[in-house]
């Protein structure tokens, strides 16, 4: 690897491991995050996403392996590294004793930023988070979506090189999610490196240039969303529901249709290049599904293929 390429690597993890007593939450993962990209960690509950995030955020000591953030070791340079990061934790931890604007200003002071910088910065971030009107209210009176936006705005106060977002949109309604996605796109355009965890595949597909699929502390696969889908799934998927008792039985009759068949308790998935045609053939053959649907393959299918389980239980 050439030197110029090397210098654009923001985060590098090698054999990164974290154990809590006997439980191995992160089990030897390797990955790199390059400057300006949006990097995703996709996986179900307990996969170890937040644990990796906390190690990158330099607030959790690794148990083994190597980790370098902006070329520094978090064990030795914790405060220095954190000065270059913006952190949006899975659960909001805004300062409920402070008003909305003061949350931004005081947080900026923790980084040692001067008031002269912070006063206009706070206004700019309030604008960004669409919270200008709420500047003087206490945090408690904000809605969930507003708190989330404020948390993201707060993470930007030190103009971070890397923004860590742990499930940024969990618990938000679709409209609030789309507003957030829009804000994150803008940050990406501005050159901020994003690391995002999520268990929403649409979010991962929308936001991430590159991602790793995780399960039980391990990386199952890595690549761009499109490449992962291409590698681990077919172009299209036919989803059929025959009612929970009949699915397994019907699946046997369908053998040979498409490239691969996956039988879940509530539905049958047929992986194929030609969804509509296959569905027509199935219906012509006399099978009457309760519901049917032809769709593009998604990361959900990739995950199912890799682990035999669905992503969102």
């Amino acid at each position, binding site marked *: 690897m050439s030197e110029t390429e090397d210098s654009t690597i923001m985060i590098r993890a090698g054999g990164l491991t974290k154990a809590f007593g006997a439980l191995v939450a992160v089990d030897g993962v390797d990955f790199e995050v390059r400057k300006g990209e949006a990097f995703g960690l996709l996986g179900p509950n307990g996969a170890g996403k937040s644990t990796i995030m906390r190690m990158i*955020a330099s*607030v959790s*000591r690794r148990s083994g392996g190597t980790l370098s953030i902006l070329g520094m070791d978090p064990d030795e340079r*914790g405060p*220095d590294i954190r000065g270059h990061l913006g952190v949006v934790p899975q659960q909001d931890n805004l*300062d409920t004793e402070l008003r909305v604007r003061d949350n931004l200003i005081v947080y900026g002071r*923790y980084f040692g930023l001067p008031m002269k910088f912070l006063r206009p910065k706070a206004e700019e971030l309030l604008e960004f988070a669409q919270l200008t009107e709420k500047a003087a209210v206490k945090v408690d009176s904000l809605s969930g979506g507003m708190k989330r936006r404020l948390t993201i705005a707060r993470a930007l106060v030190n103009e971070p090189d890397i923004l860590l977002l742990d499930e940024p949109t969990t618990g938000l309604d679709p409209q609030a999610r789309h507003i957030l996605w829009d804000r994150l796109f803008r940050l990406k355009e501005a050159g901020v490196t994003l690391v995002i965890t999520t268990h929403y595949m649409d979010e991962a597909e929308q936001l991430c240039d590159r991602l790793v699929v995780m399960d039980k502390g391990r990386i199952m696969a890595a690549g761009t969303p499109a490449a992962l889908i291409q590698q681990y799934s077919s172009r299209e998927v036919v989803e059929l529901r025959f009612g929970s008792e009949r699915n397994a039985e019907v699946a046997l009759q369908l053998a040979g249709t498409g490239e691969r068949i996956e039988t879940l308790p509530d539905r049958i998935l047929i992986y194929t290049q030609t969804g509509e045609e296959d569905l027509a053939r199935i219906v012509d053959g006399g099978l009457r599904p309760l519901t049917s649907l032809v769709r593009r393959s998604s990361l959900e299918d990739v995950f199912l293929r890799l682990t035999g389980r669905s992503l969102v239980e």
Partner: protein
Amino acid sequence: MREGRPVAAGLRSVYAGRSHTVVLRAMYALKTSAWFVVVSGFFEPVFFLLSFGLGLGGLIGAIQGPKGLAVSYAAFIAPALLATSAMNGAIYDSTWNVFFKMRFARLYEAMIATSLGPLDIALGEIAYALLRGLVYALAFMSVMFAFGLVLSPWGLLAIPAALLIAFGFASCGMAITSYMKTFQQMDWINFFMLPMFMFSATFYPITVYPEAIQLLVKIFPLWHGIELIRGLTLGQFDSSILWHALYFAVMVAVGLVATTRRLTALFMK
């Protein structure tokens, strides 16, 4: 598992030299807090002084000071009340307030994600408790001056002494609080504080106790705080006063180290 690191790197990983921003945060929080809680910390010892010192003192008359010279009862208990209020203020801030922030408000979790380290947080919270302690100490000293209860110019040193006492209690209080998980456990602190207030030679000389009890009282910190301040405001002390000050210096050091370790263990798992 990996090897230990050199001390310098160790300090750099827990301290960014920005604890004053934690103090600043507390000032901002004052904007939205209940003022009577802040002000009540001043009135409590004043009420004790008025009812016991002037009320009860009228019946008692003079009492023997540390070096056997007679002083008025009010002048005897006033320094004890100053030491106690330094203790109470420090303990209140470093226990209940810290407990809430640690367990419910997740404030330290947010702070530690910035370029602050655990030692910045510990020092900042303690410094704020001290700042509040300083305001109370100054106010109470003014009351003592007004009633003519500061009998010696050495009495001026009672203000830094009160701060030292508050520092000791605050850093140990914060360390102890970091082990507490429930409100019941927090009540143990009160259970311990009240008898210490009552029996630390606050309202009468320690010589009223038998030898064994005297030793017991001397193990606990408040007695040292009271003796320290009493010696200064009455102008009756010898070199033993340095031992009292040392007691608190040790409390400060032990408390700070323990608090930093605990914050690291709790928030940097």
